[in-house]
């Protein structure tokens, strides 16, 4: 079965041996392989079928490509899309669509998206548009031996050039700096986003035909002349048997000729003289000086109201009104990357003015090679409110006139007042029409203002295509795990995200909640020993003759005096003098340091090092290398930590006098090279065991095996937080927030005051940073030892009514099994002078009072570190 408008022969793009059935709005529509949804509908004689989004007016297919304003469908099978132009959608087996009036519906049910991949390619030339000009450019480039990629949005590339990578069904959605082209391919089974980097980009994107704003121009049966010709030549569909062609130019006349040759009765209205030399208009009734002034139908077109040069009107019976008001070069992509336009008076359109990136060339119709036309944008006769400029927003000449009458002069303002050009087709048929009608209404010459700035993408791209494979729990952002991760999983650890890392938060045993597990882990460390997977700590090796000098500049305290084999805690300040990171620097050799950073600060600190080295101190002979992932670290901590470590095959004298706190040894551990750091974040005697990453899991298992008989337990970040807070050790980013100085958190003693320079030093002299009433780190003990202050709770002196000034806030708050009560750390204005006084957290559930205390609540003498 074929549709009533399908000619018995013809149609270069359809394969008549391969019939398909399309379901449109519940009806079965015959189609062929190679049809678009639009060509199938037109072939079936469906003249309307669509509605306008706001007024609900009946609408039909207007165009044969991406410039279509009316014919949008939801695709329900064989895959889903909420809204696509019927004119660019190839019919596939089993395809089912329903019309959509410009507004789509996102399914709440679980409808899978089309799979999507991203592909990157380099080429000497990317040619956009596979018409004659594009194919010629591609052929030429290929003949020079260049790698050429030829892109076209149509589902077929005719006469494909040899030795050229052809991408049909692919739309160049944007051209970006330095020859970077992004293109979206809608292949039958998969979406593909191409990232193309080209030495040269050739834009051969052709031209779009314009309509004319006359009364009744949105009636089904009114379409672009070129579209009528395309449906005839590519799909063998004759859109009307009694056609009126209203054409201002030779290409419009070509459509008249083609329709007549296919057997239609054609009346050609020519409002102004057209040089149609070479167009075979035999059988066409040509009427010079005639205009279209209206249409009739119910709702499909039955007659065209026309006006002769003397002003006499008549109605011509017609089932097709094919309009060609001239052609506009398709240069949105070029404009978006900075190419300028000029008005071409003879062609009544905007053409590239030759400016823009030198690697971009615009050729063919896109460059302005379109036929001359009289500047006809609207017909004066008839009701302006019936002359549609932007059918997809139901906007008419009257709406444009109203915006101008209200005082808007810029076409950008008219766009925003009327929403013309904000449509799915981004104003492809309305753009030039609107700007010239605005110019006319303002009494300005044509071309005085150019159409609004185009913005990528050229045609809509599904979010799923853009996301590509970067989705889901593993691919949205890489997941980083330590070499010990399998052991944590096996032990049933609960993890937290710290940056990209998964860190064990706690290791619940049967029936334990978090509080119980954390209390057990804390007590193990305080009474026996614990082991923490500290592999995620950032590790940077800083190497070179000037390494010590460099670290002195980056840290507020001095690192150059550190002896080989010793470690020193350091803080790093921002230019504003505030703490940005902390960590331990270890001197491995005169010219070699290992610097540790916070887990989430590792990349930032390395970036910082490099930025200063590369931009400010390029003369320093220093090289920085991230070794975070090269070393696995188990931190063994607790009064029995030495016994645990001693049970490992370690080539180091563990006597505290020989290997004291803050010392470092390079050693072997069970024959494996290791670094042992005597640094502590718990307040207990600690050994950080660093081994090459591939031995990390073995190290972990060895520590557990040696330690568990001694009462050792693995502990997670939560217990680590409690333990360090009991000692008043800060966590950068939790107890600091970018507004906190070293002095504020009690680390002022380590900031150099000898006049030597370091990053942030100058800011420390600013008056605001020397105020005695700055917020300072203090401890808080709630009056009720069971009351846990929420982190973030604000602190005031007594009952207040909002808005009230906050003296500070709680930065860390925990239950301490060691102290047998809750406690908190807080930043409080003039906090150190408030020690011994009470503050109140005004919580929604009522105020909670707490006593201000020193921030170090456990072993303030540090006697347990030995």
């Amino acid at each position, binding site marked *: 079965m074929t549709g009533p408008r399908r000619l018995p022969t013809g149609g270069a793009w359809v394969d008549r041996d391969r019939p398909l059935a399309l379901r449109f709005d519940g009806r079965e529509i015959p189609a062929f392989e190679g049809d678009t949804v639009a060509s199938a509908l037109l072939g079936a004689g469906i003249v309307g079928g669509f509605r306008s989004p706001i007024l609900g007016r009946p609408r039909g297919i207007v165009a044969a490509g991406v410039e279509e304003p009316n014919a949008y469908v939801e695709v329900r099978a064989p895959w*889903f*899309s*909420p*809204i696509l132009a019927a004119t660019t959608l190839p019919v596939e087996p089993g395809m089912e669509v329903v019309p959509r009036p*410009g507004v*789509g519906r*996102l*399914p*709440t049910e679980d*409808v899978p998206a089309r799979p999507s991949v*991203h592909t990157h390619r380099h080429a000497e030339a990317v040619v956009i548009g596979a018409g004659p000009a594009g194919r010629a450019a591609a052929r030429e480039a290929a003949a020079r031996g260049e790698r050429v990629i030829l892109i076209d949005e149509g589902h077929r590339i005719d006469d494909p050039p040899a030795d050229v990578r052809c991408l049909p069904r692919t739309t160049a959605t*944007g051209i*970006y700096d330095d020859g970077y082209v992004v293109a979206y391919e809608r292949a039958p089974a998969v979406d593909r*986003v191409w990232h193309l980097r080209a030495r040269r980009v050739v834009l051969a994107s052709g031209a779009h035909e314009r309509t004319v704003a006359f009364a009744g121009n949105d009636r089904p049966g009114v379409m672009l002349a070129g579209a009528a010709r395309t449906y005839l030549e590519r799909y063998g569909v004759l859109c009307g048997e009694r056609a009126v062609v209203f054409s201002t130019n030779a290409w419009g006349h070509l459509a008249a000729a083609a329709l007549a040759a296919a057997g239609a009765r054609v009346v050609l209205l020519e409002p102004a003289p057209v040089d149609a030399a070479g167009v075979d208009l035999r059988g066409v009734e040509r009427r010079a000086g005639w205009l279209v002034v209206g249409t009739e139908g119910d709702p499909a077109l039955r007659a065209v109201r026309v006006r002769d040069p003397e002003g006499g009107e008549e109605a011509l019976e017609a089932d097709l009104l094919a309009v060609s008001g001239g052609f506009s070069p398709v240069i949105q992509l070029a404009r978006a*990357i900075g190419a300028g336009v000029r008005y071409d008076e003879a062609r009544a359109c905007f053409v590239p003015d030759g400016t823009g990136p030198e690697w971009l060339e615009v050729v063919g119709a896109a460059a302005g090679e379109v036929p001359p036309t009289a500047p006809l944008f609207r017909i004066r006769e008839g009701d302006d409110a019936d002359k549609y400029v932007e059918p997809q927003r139901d906007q008419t000449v009257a709406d444009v006139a109203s915006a101008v009458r*209200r*005082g*808007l002069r*810029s076409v*950008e*303002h008219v766009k*925003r*007042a009327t*929403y013309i050009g904000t449509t*799915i087709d981004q104003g492809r048929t309305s753009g030039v029409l609107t700007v010239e009608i605005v110019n006319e209404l303002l009494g300005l010459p044509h071309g005085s203002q150019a159409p609004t700035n185009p*913005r990528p993408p050229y045609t*809509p*791209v*599904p*979010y799923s295509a*853009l*996301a*590509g494979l*970067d*989705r*889901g*729990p593993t691919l*949205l*952002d890489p997941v980083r795990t330590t070499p010990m991760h399998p052991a944590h999983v096996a032990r049933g650890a609960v993890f*937290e*995200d710290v940056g990209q890392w998964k860190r064990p938060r706690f290791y619940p045993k049967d029936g334990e909640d978090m509080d119980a597990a954390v209390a057990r882990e804390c007590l193990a460390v305080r009474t026996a020993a614990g082991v923490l997977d500290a592999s995620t700590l950032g590790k940077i090796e800083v190497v070179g003759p000037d390494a010590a000098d460099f670290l002195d500049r980056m840290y507020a305290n001095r690192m150059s005096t550190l002896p080989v084999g010793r470690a020193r805690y350091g803080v790093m300040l921002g230019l*504003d*003098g*505030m703490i940005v990171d902390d960590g331990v620097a270890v001197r491995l050799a005169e010219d070699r340091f290992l610097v540790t950073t916070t887990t989430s600060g590792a990349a930032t600190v390395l970036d910082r090092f490099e930025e200063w080295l590369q931009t400010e101190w390029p003369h320093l002979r220093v090289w920085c290398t991230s070794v975070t992932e090269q070393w696995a670290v188990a931190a063994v901590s607790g009064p029995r930590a030495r016994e645990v470590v001693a049970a490992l095959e370690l080539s180091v004298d563990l006597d505290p006098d020989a290997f004291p706190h803050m010392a470092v040894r390079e050693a072997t551990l069970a024959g494996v090279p290791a670094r042992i750091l005597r640094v502590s974040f718990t307040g207990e005697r600690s050994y950080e065991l660093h081994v090459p990453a591939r031995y990390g899991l073995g190290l972990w298992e060895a520590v557990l095996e040696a330690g568990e008989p001694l009462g050792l337990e693995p502990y997670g970040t939560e217990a680590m937080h409690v333990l360090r807070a009991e000692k008043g050790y800060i966590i950068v980013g939790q107890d600091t*927030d970018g*507004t906190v100085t070293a002095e504020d958190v009690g680390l002022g003693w380590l900031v150099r005051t000898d006049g030597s320079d370091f990053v942030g030093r100058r*800011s420390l002299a*600013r008056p*605001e940073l020397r105020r005695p009433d700055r917020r300072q780190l203090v401890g808080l003990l709630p009056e009720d030892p069971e009351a846990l202050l*929420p*982190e*973030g709770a*604000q602190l005031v002196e007594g009952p207040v009514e*909002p*808005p*009230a000034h*906050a003296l500070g*806030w709680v930065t860390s708050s925990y239950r301490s099994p060691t102290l047998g009560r809750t406690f908190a750390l807080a930043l409080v204005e003039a906090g150190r002078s408030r020690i011994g006084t009470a503050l109140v957290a*005004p919580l*929604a559930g009522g105020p909670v009072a707490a006593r201000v205390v020193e921030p170090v609540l456990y072993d303030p003498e540090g006697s347990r570190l030995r």
Partner: protein
Amino acid sequence: MPGARPEPEHLWRSAEPKPSYEVVVVGGGGHGLATAYYLARNHGIRDVCVVERGWLAGGNVARNTTIIRSNYLWEASEAIYEHALRLWEGLEDELDWDLQFSQRGVMNLAHTLGDVREGRRRVEANRLAGIDAEWLEPEEVRAFCPILNVSPDVRYPVLGATLQRRAGVARHDRVAWAYATRASELGVDIVEHLEVTGFLRDARGRVVGVETDAGPIRAGAVALAAAGHTSVLAERVGLRLPLQSHPLQALVSNLYEPVLGCVVMSNAVHVYVSQADKGELVMGAGIDAYNGYGQRGSFHVIEHQMAAALELFPIFRHAQLLRTWAGIVDVCPDASPIIGLTPIEGLYLNCGWGTGGFKATPASGWVYADTIANGRPHPLAEPFSLERFTTGALVDEHGAAAVAH
């Protein structure tokens, strides 16, 4: 499209510049127009000219994602953004204009324990400041925004959210046009397509006007309100500002039937999104790290944004990207604005709003006008002086911005 309130018959008057004015405002965006309006409305200063080098309100006010909220962290910011929100709440009546102001609630999602801590702190701080704020647990997050994926099986699960119910969106063009029109009615001259190329100085070095393409305009006070280009202008008068300008992208989708009734923001996975009344999803993307004045961002930022959006909103997988664009955000080292006087007499400064400019528009105009009218900082502007970079009294709002600066 018609709203509940009839559209005014006439919009602003396009003026030709006079030789001199009491105040020349450089920049016809939201802040410049609001400033002109409040100069006339609050201070009776009607001899004002707004000079705009392009078409009116075509810069950041036309390029933002229209989010309005006041849940900032520090008291200085809370005060000025809350002043803005209160003005927003009366602005449709004040300007007699349908601004499509919709207090649909803004939710800021937390995805890590650090986010949770930060979010709860903000809620507590906002409540003490008298600003409405709530903390939502994941189930409450889902109840407030049913299409949000709060499953634990995603890369960064939703651990909770802050919610400001009074926050929302407004139609940006209408805001600018309403200010322009009402200012114009009060006698303010609005001159489009005129670029300020330099400044007139007197013998004492005071700024006494501007040079333009069309010749000099003398002024008792010159008020910069040029957002991303402020540092370029200030350099012409020898003033170096602690500003960096970056491209910041935004995008809209095709039109869809309503699915999202609130505003959702997520710093950690770089999403902020609302659905406009017309039906398009309006989303903000991340900032481009490099400095630049081109209103064009990098495409990979958009792709990253889409991937993150799909993770949070599986329903968006079928949505289609319609348009992308970029504005230029001018960012101070502490991610807070500069409003006030300058070391150069006669020259006033309002810049550095970063990603927070649109929501601040009414308050920015209000306090800037007051500052210019009285020659001293409005109390709400005092913390945002240029001197703070010398004294060190910074207002660090890096955490409060929609995206990391």
